[in-house]
Structure formats: structure tokens, C-alpha cells
């Protein structure tokens, strides 16, 4: 694989990144085991957010008591059963927020180094564009047999 330059980790404690992540978070998202809600985080003054960033930035890893994940099965077809459910995991709010901060920057970095046909979650490469490009390939080229697969 060709060498890809490493992204600097300085953004982890960038106040603006945290503010953006808090501002764009859904206020009604379920709180994790730490009990913080995004609604509360949105109300915090900058000075407190700075303290929070400092605390998270100093951690080598999140403590075990924050890494308890509540798993809830969501029914797929109105009726809840083991087969017709999709489990969602609710992690601690602080961990999720840290993940959002890291995720935003890392996705921007990855977008520069991914191939044209790696789609999804990347800027300007949503599902709609992915389908469009795929159908365009089929229209332009007389492509041969294809296997389409979905992972689980």
C-alpha cells in the first residue's frame, strides 16, 4: 500500500472543533452512562468546555466505568423479535463527543487518500452519488458478470 502521510493529532484539544461537534450534535440523543445529555453540553460556557477538553485530552484511554455500553434492540418491522431487530449501542456521551471530534478531522484526511469508488460518509460521496456512479458505469461500459455483496 502506498505510504500515506500521518495526520497531526493536535486537533484533539482544539476548542473550535469541540464547539462545532457540540453544536451539530442532536440535542435529543440519548445520554450514555455518564449521564450527560447533549442538551446540557450545548449550554456549557466556553471556559467549562475548555476544562472538559483538557480532561479528555490528558487521558491515555477512557476509564472502564465510562466504557459501559447500553445496547437496545430497535424493532425493524414494528414487532420486536430477535430476528426483526437492529441493536444500537449507546456509549458514554463524552466518549461519543470525543469520537465526533476525531471522526470529523480523520474523515477529511481519509477523503484525500481514498480511491474514487470508495463511497459513504465521505464528503460529496453519499449513497445517491454512489448509486449514480455505479449506474453510469453500467451504462457507459458493457461490463461483464458482477457479484454484489453485503457484509454482516
Amino acid at each position: 500500500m502506498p505510504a500515506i502521510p500521518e495526520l497531526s493529532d493536535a486537533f484533539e484539544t482544539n476548542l473550535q472543533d469541540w464547539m462545532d461537534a457540540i453544536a451539530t450534535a442532536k440535542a435529543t440523543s440519548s445520554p450514555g452512562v455518564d449521564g450527560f445529555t447533549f442538551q446540557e453540553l450545548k449550554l456549557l460556557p466556553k471556559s467549562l468546555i475548555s476544562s472538559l477538553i483538557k480532561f479528555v485530552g490528558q487521558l491515555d484511554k477512557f476509564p472502564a466505568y465510562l466504557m459501559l455500553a447500553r445496547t437496545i434492540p430497535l424493532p425493524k418491522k414494528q414487532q420486536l423479535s430477535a430476528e426483526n431487530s437492529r441493536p444500537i449501542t449507546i456509549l458514554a456521551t463524552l466518549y461519543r463527543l470525543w469520537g465526533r471530534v476525531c471522526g470529523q478531522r480523520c474523515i477529511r484526511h481519509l477523503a484525500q487518500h481514498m480511491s474514487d469508488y470508495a463511497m459513504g460518509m465521505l464528503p460529496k460521496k453519499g449513497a445517491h452519488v454512489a448509486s449514480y456512479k455505479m449506474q453510469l458505469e453500467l451504462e457507459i461500459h458493457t461490463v461483464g458478470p458482477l457479484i454484489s455483496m453485503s457484509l454482516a
Partner: protein
Amino acid sequence: MRRQKVQQLLKAFGLPARLVDKWFLSIAQMHRFWDISKQTSKLIPSPDGCPEGDAWSVLAMLVVSECWSRLLQFHAQYVRTVSYADNWTMWSKDDELQARPTLVTCSFVEWMGLQISWNKTWLWSTGTTGAKKLAEVLQPHVPLDLLEIKENATDLGCQMTYHGGAKLGVIHDRLACAKKRLDILKHATWIFPLKAHVVLTNVMPVALYGCELLAIGQRHLSQLRTTIADALVGETVQSMNPGVFLACADLHILGPHLFVIVQSVKLARKVLRTLDNDMRQVFLKLVATPVKTTGLTQGPASALREYLLRLGLTCSGSGDIQMTALRSCNLLTTPFKDLQLGIQRAWYEQLLMFHSQRTKLYNTLPIHSDEMCRLLHKFNPKQRLLLLREIAGAFQTGAQVSKWEADTTGECEYCGNGSDTRWHRAAECSAFHDIRQPHMEVIDDLRDFHETFVELPVIHFHPHWEFMTRYCGPCLPLLSRLKLLKSSPKKLALPCGSLPMAAASTLNAPILASLLSQ
């Protein structure tokens, strides 16, 4: 998914090693507990996998799919791939058909600790025999009994066509779903602008998602348009023209015919900019090449050609679309706003001819939708709806009713003298003489030049609109524009886009005269 492998991959893709380690060490301590109907389970250690709600799981899936793609490129360069999170697709040409890419994929998936859902996997080919040949090649390696061979399928929410003519497939269901929503909206007592907003945000995206991949038939779009208009009005009105109604209802595009064309151009432009030059040329060539059959599409390029043809437009091999006699737009370089304006203008040119049964209106100038919406916005929602109904022909005069109901004579019920037509009510009916008296000058102008205005009381494009916008431009001072208008052979020309609403909408000669005398 094996976390340690993901950790290595994330680092290999240049993500900060310290943060990747922090994620890895944190997630290693994760314990899950089930929460079902307010009952919780014991803590369960979670030594593997990336939880779905975690932003790092997105990064993990991206690097894994990219790694798979690069691995296949290394082992089988003839294979091409597309990956969207955990939906992966690979293909090759008939003569390069081998089991190796599938075997490499299976090994990689196993190495990563993933599993392939074979029941969600399918084979397809653009030819008639390809998929069967592939099935033979793969037989010893995969559970073929679980694999379907498909000619079209719903993938990532869009209807994909692999072989044969495009089928609406999931779009049928979406249209049905949109109609259900519109039925609910029709019976809602919300004000008109709110209903229009709901249509824009909750109906159009549902009904017409993926409409750029294949051309949706005009019958489906017409039915949807009628349902939208009925929902906005709150009842089914047979005599109302939904095309005219939606053209004047909102500044946003509410008509599905126009919506799909604009969306198709927008997405084509967006994707073309990301393609390499060769692919771009092939795409444009497909759009530019005429075909024997209209209505049949194989993909986005032919769908775009079909949509443009519905407006009487064609795109050249270099992406130029001749919007009017004097104006040409380029699919790639012209600002989208200008492209949209050109398309809208072309649509309104067609509207009264091809989407109306009112023969009197066939040769009238196109409706100036934007000016009309701005004018109607000056009224409150209730009045606006009544005006829109009048414009779209939702109210029938006695003469119209007499054509389908034998008991009605068609005589004016107000004066009892003369046929009850729109013109009679506006200019002749003696019952309204006093109301009409202060406006006789306008009535005379209507009689001389604009009799159809009574049939369709809307703002039209100026007959010389193209010349005026091209050579006079929006920057030309108002007075000069009015003087130009004065020198026009039709002294009181119907309003154009570059005229102020005061002069344009009221048809009031004294206002024009006073402006000119300043």
C-alpha cells in the same frame, strides 16, 4: 471485526497513532449490557467489533473497504470495485471472468473477522449469459443456492438496472408512499404555505429519490402533480389545471416534471465534475447522441437526454445546451442558477401547450412563475389560495358547466343577458358595471391586446424578454427599461421580469405614465 487489524489499518491510512491507540485501549475495556423493556442484563465483555454508534466505526469501515479494494487491485487488476460501508460490489468483463477475486474477498473478510451475508448477495450481468457463467465459476466456492441472479435491484436506496429496460421498482413504492402522505395532507387544515413546505420537505424527496438514474414516465409525474395540487387545495377539483396551479404556488419547484429535470441536471453536473476527462466525454456523447426510441433509458446519461428532450432541449457533446435562440448554457461551466433559470423558462414555454387542455391558451406567452409567486406572496394565505384557484381554473363559469350538465343553460346568472363566460363577467356583465367603471382604460387595453389575460390572469414573460435580458441586462436603469417598453409596438406590453411589480402586475397605464414622466 477484529479490532487489532482495524487499529493497524487506521494507522496505515495515516490517522494519528496516539489517537488510534487511545480508541483501541478505550474500546478494549468496553462492556455491553442489554436494555430491553426496562430490564437490563449482566455486563458482557466485548472483546471484538466496533459498535455502530461510535464515530470510529465509520472510520473503521472506510479503511476496511478501501483496503479490500486495493487488495483486489493488487491480486486482480482487471476487477473494478465500488464500496459503500459494508455494501461491496466488484465486476469484470466477460473474458476476464475468474473465481480469484471472490476467493481473495472471502479470505480478506475472514482475516478481518467479518462474514458475508450470502442471502443479501446477488449476481448480475449486463448481458444475458454472463451471470450464469459466473455462477458456474463460483460454484465450488460459494453457497450458490443463496445467491440470486438479478436484472435490476434496489441498492443503496436507488433502483439499479443491470440488464434490459429500466424498471421503476422501488420508485413505484415511493410514489405510492408519497400519495399516502399527500392524502393525509389534503385533509389537513393547515395553511397553504405550510402545506407547500410539507410537500417540499416530506413528499418530493420521498417520491423522487433516485429519479436521475432512470427517466420516470410522464404519466406517473402527472398523477403525482395532480395529487400535490389537490393536497394543497384541500379537495379534488377536476377543472383545475395542476400545472398552472403549482407554477404560481411557490418560488420553490413544486411541479414533479420540472423537479426531476432540475435534479437530474444538478446531479449530472456534480458527478461529471468528479469524473476523469474520458468518462466525462463518454457521458456527454451518450447525452448528445439521438436514439430511435424515446422513453427508454439505461442509466443517468440517457435519462438526462430523455428529460431534456421533454423540454425540447438537447445537449451537445461538449455539454452545451441551447436554452433559447440567443442563450446557450454549459452543463459544467454555467452557474447552476442560470441553468435552472433556463430549464424553468423552457418548461413554462411548454406548460400551456402540452400540459393544458385549454386550447385558448395554447399560444399565450409563458407564465412568469417567479414574478407571479412574488405578487401572490403579498396576499394572506387564504386569499392566495383563492387567487390560485381562480388562476388555475378551479371555478367554472355557467358556460363551462353547460357543456357537461344538460340542466344548465349557460346564461349569466347575474344579469341574465349573455353567455356566462369569464370575458362577459370581466368586461360586459351589466351587474358589475359600477365596479368596472374606474378601470375602463385597463379593460379597453385588455380588449385590444390581451383578451387571454381574462382566461389566465397571470404575469407572462415579455414577448421580447430574451432580447431585453440579453442586451439590456438587469443593470439597465429602470427608466431606460420603461422607455424601451414605451417604444415597443404594443404600448401596454404585458409585464416582463425586469419591470417593477407596481407597473408589471397592475396593468395600470397611469402608473407607467407617471413613472415615465419622472
